[in-house]
């Protein structure tokens, strides 16, 4: 049979059956001991676990018995972030989680066709946290609601949870694989090995995935506590995590179906997963507790996996010809470009960089990016020649080696904003929004990232085009302003190693 995942906001009632049964199953899973592979906490630890944080939030205590070291090594801390495995790993994780919940639903007397709802926060009037997750009690007003968690602070840190910083811009990407540094990160992320939180996010992972995590979890305004969703080591403890990832999984399928150019990787290294490189396998527990080993190649066809979504309609994205027309290409030529087979992006080239070491505290920070003459001229020439029928370069802003003592900060990054200009009046100069998710882990010198932090890449092609047309791109320096959505205290200062601009020819 084919299970249909439905929009949580369109189930007909705040406590519609799929939500009520989800809550009952979550309550049941939460009663199981930590070492039980189908328990709530075991499943959360597969995504990530930090003993100190779990103890702080009372998800781990002295009476808990952990699984054996071998089981921990095999299952826990697997989540794939900042890697081209991000989407398929989470699909497999979601698939078995849904099966475990369904088994619990059936055992409790619920429907055998139960499926996980998704939260489409990008849809009109659906950005708010679904009501079933806001209520502290069951619908009859009794007992604690297992779908409610205290540690959800929302984007303003006041407990009002809504997704306000997410966009679907990366749905316009046509290339799945990106560069590790400099150029496009691709829809799906850079080529990596098994990467339990890597260093460079794919476009779609950065936005909307990361921003939804931090918008929901947030940072407590007075307590400075982090929401569960704010940190990858606690995120899967929050029941809304799974509805968020169901939507991410849905959007991956929407992306794939929306254009014949949107193809998943065909490299055997992606299809077969990371084990070919001597890395750990992807494995999650099935409802009977046995192992489900999987690799990305198994997970690209929803039909064969036995589930679908009630909405796979394409998301509106700008056509590539829009850009060319703005750069002076005739409509006919621009459309002809679109018909041409897509060429993989070339090697990125550094155009300019800031000085090292930018501290972001308080309301944000400013930085000057010095542009080197030769690549600057080459970029200007490329944009100039677009009107002659040549594919122009794309331009990327990189925030390199971003480190922080805690996750959760959200920054809006502006390019070429003058010092006296109010950012709110210049959305056209907004390069993008970045949310610190996984940066705490990446900042530990003896962690898996060796303290390198995280690199963020924002596509600023649209801004570069506009500056070019205004004659303001061929300059020695460009101003970059980082605006924090909430003030960053000095003891939580975020450090950016360097801000750089790269160009990438088609």
């Amino acid at each position, binding site marked *: 049979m084919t299970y249909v995942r439905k929009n949580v906001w369109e189930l007909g009632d705040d406590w519609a059956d799929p939500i009520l049964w989800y809550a009952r199953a979550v309550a049941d899973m939460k009663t199981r001991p930590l070492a039980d592979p189908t328990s709530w906490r075991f499943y959360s630890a597969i995504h990530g676990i930090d003993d100190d944080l779990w103890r702080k939030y009372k998800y781990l205590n002295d009476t808990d018995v952990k699984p054996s070291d071998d089981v921990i090594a095999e299952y826990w801390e697997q989540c794939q972030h900042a890697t081209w495995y991000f989407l398929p790993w989470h699909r497999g994780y979601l*698939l*078995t989680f849904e*099966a475990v919940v369904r088994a619990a639903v059936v055992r409790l007397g619920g429907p055998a066709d139960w499926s996980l709802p998704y939260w489409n926060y990008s849809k009109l009037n659906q950005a708010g946290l679904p009501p079933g997750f806001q209520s502290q009690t069951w619908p009859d007003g009794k007992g604690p609601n297992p779908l409610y968690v205290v540690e959800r602070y929302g984007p303003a840190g006041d407990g009002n949870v809504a997704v306000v910083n997410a966009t679907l811009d990366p749905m316009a990407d046509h290339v799945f694989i990106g560069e*590790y*540094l*400099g150029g496009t990160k691709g829809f799906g992320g*850079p*080529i*990596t*090995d098994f990467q339990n939180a890597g260093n460079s996010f794919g476009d779609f992972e950065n936005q909307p995935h990361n921003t939804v995590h931090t918008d929901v979890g947030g940072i407590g305004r007075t307590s400075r506590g982090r929401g569960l969703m704010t940190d990858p080591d606690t995120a899967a403890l929050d029941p809304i995590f799974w509805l968020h990832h169901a939507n991410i999984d849905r959007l991956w399928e929407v992306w794939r179906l929306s254009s014949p150019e949107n193809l998943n990787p065909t*490299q*055997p*290294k992606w299809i*077969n*997963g990371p*084990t*070919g*490189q*001597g*890395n750990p*396998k992807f494995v999650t527990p*099935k*409802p009977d507790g046995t192992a*489900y*080993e*999987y*690799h990305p*190649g*198994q997970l690209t066809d929803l039909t064969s*996996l*036995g589930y679908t979504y009630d909405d796979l309609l394409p998301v509106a994205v700008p056509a590539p010809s829009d850009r060319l027309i703005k750069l002076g290409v005739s409509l006919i030529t621009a459309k002809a470009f679109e018909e041409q087979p897509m060429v993989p992006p*070339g*090697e*990125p*080239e*550094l155009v*300019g*960089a800031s*000085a*090292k*070491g930018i501290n972001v505290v308080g309301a944000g920070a400013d930085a000057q990016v*010095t542009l*080197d003459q*030769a*690549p600057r001229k080459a970029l200007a020439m490329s944009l100039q020649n677009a009107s002659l029928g040549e594919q122009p370069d794309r331009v990327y802003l990189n925030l*390199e*080696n971003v480190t922080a003592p805690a996750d959760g900060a959200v920054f809006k990054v502006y390019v070429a904003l003058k010092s006296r200009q109010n950012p709110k009046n210049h959305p056209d100069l907004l390069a993008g929004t970045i949310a610190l998710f996984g940066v705490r882990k990446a900042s530990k*010198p*003896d*962690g*898996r*990232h*060796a*303290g*390198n932090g995280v690199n963020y890449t924002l596509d600023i092609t649209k801004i570069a085009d506009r500056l070019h047309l205004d004659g303001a791109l061929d300059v020695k320096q460009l101003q970059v302003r980082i605006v924090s959505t909430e003030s960053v205290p000095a003891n939580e200062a975020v450090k950016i*190693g*360097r801000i*750089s601009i790269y160009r990438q020819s088609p």
Partner: protein
Amino acid sequence: MHHLPGRKPLARAIVGLTVVAWAALLARDASMMNEMDVRHAASDLSGVLVQWLLMLSAMMLPILAVPVKHVYDRSLKRHRFRSVGLFVLAYFAIWSASGVLVAWLSALSHSRWLIFTLACFIVLIWHCSPGKQRCLNRCHALPSLCAFGLRADVDALGFGLRHGTWCMWSCLPLMISITLLPEWHLVTMAAVAVWIFAERLELPRRPVWSCRVPLRLWRMACANVPAFLSGGANRLLLTYEAKPVTLP
């Protein structure tokens, strides 16, 4: 760990220089016809240093691929090879400094087996220590680098010095023990080179006392070599086929 997509000239240069270094080592080894030649070479400071640099090139160049790519990617196009050169220069300068110690130990003509045994014991203790793991972790550091002017040069040199220092502390006991080995230099050197490469393939981990065996390279071989040898259509590292599984 990331890779070298689209940087074929860099990868070719690293592979090429490694092959040249091994060829030179083989040639030097073949030219030493008898025990006297070996003793003479061991007592000649310049000879020891040349041998030391060749050893370093042969054994360490493959593990420089990631930091070299980092320097290359983060440099202006007109500075790329200059920055990479400065990084490599600083890296080898640090290692060359340790060559003085190696030269002194190599000059010891008595009780070489005893000293070698002692060195092996130190290697074993060091290998299991948190200090060694901390050094290995630091070898994965990829810092920010300035792009312009003198500061770009200073940063490339500084990165090379830091990387070389951590690398040296991580591997020096092992390297010294090879030079003290009275026989079977080249074979041992090749084995140790594979070991060092395997260690570098592992991800950083918490520094604690532990007997660590870098098994990832072995797992890679197990996953790929059989298919490669059976003439699969794809090349090494791309041929692994995961077993089919039953979906839940």
